[in-house]
């Protein structure tokens, strides 16, 4: 019943193949580099947390310490594990001493390489065990409590104050939400450290901190027990600290993470090398943690026109899919994004929305597609906006989307108030229930407008992907082929945090993670073949 649109499978295969090459080429190129964020993430997974007397997070203190001495390219882990072994203390204690200025990592005598490897492996396994336990705990809770049906009802909270967020999140869960996302404060994506502790002062969102994750997780667990439904927690694994947030989320049992291979480059002007390296490591963690990622294709449509730029969304989905596969993240965790952003004044615009949603559905049959609501064309007219959201909900249930980011009638004015969410949930519940099996009852007329539109979008996306494949992703980004913004490989924020790895670069977490998700590091050369998911 799913194949409501007749599509050319040959074209789909071409698009996928081009994207696989694009991703593999990038990976080959960047394999030799690491970033400060990756290194800080390694330290976090080795057990380092907390801040120094100035409030600087210890992972930053240690990494900056190594960077100053020009020794980070060996991998932060090699120094820290060495120090821990030598001093017979924990990595956390190592970091504390570095912060206190009582320990200089590069001056400590080197322990035997084999014992360092062993200790590194032990600590990595210990760090990952916490994540594995969280994954088991999630599965156990879902088995015990159950979960909402798909499309999951996904809502955001964004008060700026984690304690208000908890109230709003719990209230949302009682209203029927399946996923609660805590939106980040404006600007957090561009700061090169993760703030610490519970926070109450964000703008347009609440800082992502590990303590905030923990508090919110606790709140949602409580309410989940009461309503008898596992409530998923989502945050943003994006920006300059992408992999660190992945680690923190994995440690605090988040369930969903915004995580896009290109978003930071295009929409936050983060250096492309930095983002692409960070995304790979963050996805490795997300994949292992059983966290569903949500990609950010909707962002293409906030500046570009949704009709004209529709194919860029599909092209990006293909690319995100391949980068995810390369990082060992399975299709069931790929919440590939798209959005209902066509101008509501367009005659037959609804048909185009339907075509696009169904197209994504058929091309990525196993992915829990994340569908974003109208935002750009939402206005101060909350009544009309509520109806736009209803049409969005209808497309979703008609085409079998996975995650429904609920539209709010107050989109044009403020982040959601407590009752905006209630009304949005009610809207979706009504439509989903009242038209539950409509998708099974209708077929698109062959050769009609909907089918023609889907084919056109697919063809244009494939054309674009093959062009990018030809010139390479870096050049494509330089030429502004994506989202109309031009980015240079050496421009953008965070480039100074990108480093060539030494030949003796050491990262026990990466190795262990790859092993565990079944990505044999030595086999990575052969990705072209594996890029295509078996269907």
């Amino acid at each position, binding site marked *: 019943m799913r194949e409501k649109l007749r599509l050319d499978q040959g074209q789909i295969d071409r698009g996928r193949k081009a994207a696989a090459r694009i991703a593999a080429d990038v990976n080959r190129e960047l394999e030799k580099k690491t970033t400060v964020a990756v290194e800080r993430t390694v330290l976090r997974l080795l057990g380092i947390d907390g801040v120094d007397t100035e409030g600087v997070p210890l992972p930053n203190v240690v990494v900056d310490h190594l960077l100053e001495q020009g020794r980070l390219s060996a991998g932060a882990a090699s120094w820290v594990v060495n120090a821990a072994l030598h001093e017979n203390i924990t990595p956390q204690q190592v970091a504390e001493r570095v912060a206190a200025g009582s320990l200089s990592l590069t001056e400590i005598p080197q322990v035997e390489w084999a014992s360092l490897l062993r200790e590194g492996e032990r600590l990595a396994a210990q760090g990952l065990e916490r994540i594995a336990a969280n994954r088991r705990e999630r599965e156990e809770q879902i088995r015990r409590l159950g979960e909402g049906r798909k499309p999951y009802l996904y809502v955001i909270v*964004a*008060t700026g104050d984690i304690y*208000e967020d908890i109230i709003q999140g719990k209230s949302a869960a009682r209203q029927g939400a399946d996923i609660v996302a805590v939106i980040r404060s404006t600007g957090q994506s561009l700061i090169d450290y993760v703030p610490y502790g519970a926070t109450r002062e964000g703008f347009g969102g609440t800082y992502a901190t590990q303590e905030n994750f923990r508090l919110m997780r606790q709140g949602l667990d409580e309410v989940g027990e009461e309503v008898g439904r596992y409530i998923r927690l989502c945050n943003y694994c994006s920006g300059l600290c992408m992999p660190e947030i992945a680690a923190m989320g994995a440690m605090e049992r988040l369930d969903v993470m915004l995580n896009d291979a290109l978003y930071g480059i295009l929409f936050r002007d983060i250096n492309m090398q930095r983002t692409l390296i960070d995304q790979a490591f963050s996805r490795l963690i997300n994949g292992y943690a059983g966290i569903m990622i949500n990609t950010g294709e909707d962002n293409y449509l906030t500046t570009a026109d949704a009709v004209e730029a529709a194919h860029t969304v599909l092209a990006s989905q293909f690319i995100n899919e391949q980068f995810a596969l390369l990082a060992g993240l399975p299709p069931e965790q790929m919440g590939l994004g798209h959005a209902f952003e066509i101008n509501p004044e367009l005659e037959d615009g609804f048909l185009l929305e339907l075509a696009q949603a169904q197209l994504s559905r058929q091309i990525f049959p196993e992915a829990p597609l994340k569908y974003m609501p109208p935002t750009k064309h939402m206005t*101060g007219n*909350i009544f009309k906006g509520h109806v736009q959201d209803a049409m969005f909900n209808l497309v979703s249930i008609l085409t079998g989307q996975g995650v429904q980011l609920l539209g709010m009638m107050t989109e044009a*004015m*403020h*982040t959601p108030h*407590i009752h905006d969410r209630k009304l949005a949930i009610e809207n979706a519940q009504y439509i989903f229930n009242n038209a539950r099996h409509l998708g099974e009852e209708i077929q698109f007329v062959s050769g009609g407008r909907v089918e023609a539109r889907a084919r056109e979008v697919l063809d244009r996306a494939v054309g674009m992907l093959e062009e990018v494949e030809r010139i390479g992703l870096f050049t494509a980004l330089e030429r502004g082929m994506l989202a109309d913004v031009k980015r240079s490989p050496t421009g953008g924020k965070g480039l100074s945090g990108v480093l060539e790895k030494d030949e003796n670069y050491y990262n026990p977490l990466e190795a262990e993670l790859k092993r565990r998700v079944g990505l044999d590091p030595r086999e990575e050369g052969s990705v072209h073949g594996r890029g295509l998911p078996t269907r």
Partner: protein
Amino acid sequence: MAVDFQRVKPYGDTLGDGAVQLSFSLPVPCGEEARQAARQLAAQMGLEEPQVYHMDDLGEGYTFFIVYGTCTHTVDFTSIRVPKVDDGGRMNYEAINRFIRERIGRKLVVIGACTGTDAHTVGIDAIMNMKGYDGEYGLERYPEIEAYNLGSQVPNEEMLAEAIERDADALLVSQVVTQKGVHIDNLTRLVELTEAEGLRNRLILVCGGPRINHEMALELGFDAGFGPGSLAPDVASFLVRELERRMSNDTSKAPD
């Protein structure tokens, strides 16, 4: 973030933020002056920083607005007491019939109608009809109640005549149309008529409808009022208790 229940304020996403949404039209032509007029009105209502998020020309010199603002008023929640129908604890179908058999000792006679020009019978039918509503039998099904549903658009006079004829214990009046206060006039007239006939003390007067509440019913001179979502057992529980109360008052008077 403990709520101060003596000074409760609207809440959007931060305790005390006072967030309120408004919409209304003004009989002024659309434009910046109209927007300003809407803001001033909201300000008079006690909203700080009123924002007109949407303004629309309705033609004919009228303009529509959607406004958000920050309410400065507070309510003392701790001092609120709401009068509620005293049904002495809602009984179910069986308990009510048993109560009538044991404590009243005869059948209750109840007459219902949708009075005046009102033809909305669904509400009174929900309370009275045999088949009932929302899983509850209506009064006609109660073996210990003789229930007569006169239907729609029944003049007050006719209802009262019927009450006299059947020696009724209670009148159940439904009023759904409320435009220009027509229900108030109509309900008030029924009370006046019963008083004029000297029947007010012999009859339990009950009204109901989507815009009726108990407090307002009392003000109009009724014994009880029932709003949306009411069901037959709610009404019957009140009726039998009230009748018992009146009977015991009567007997206490009897010796004199």
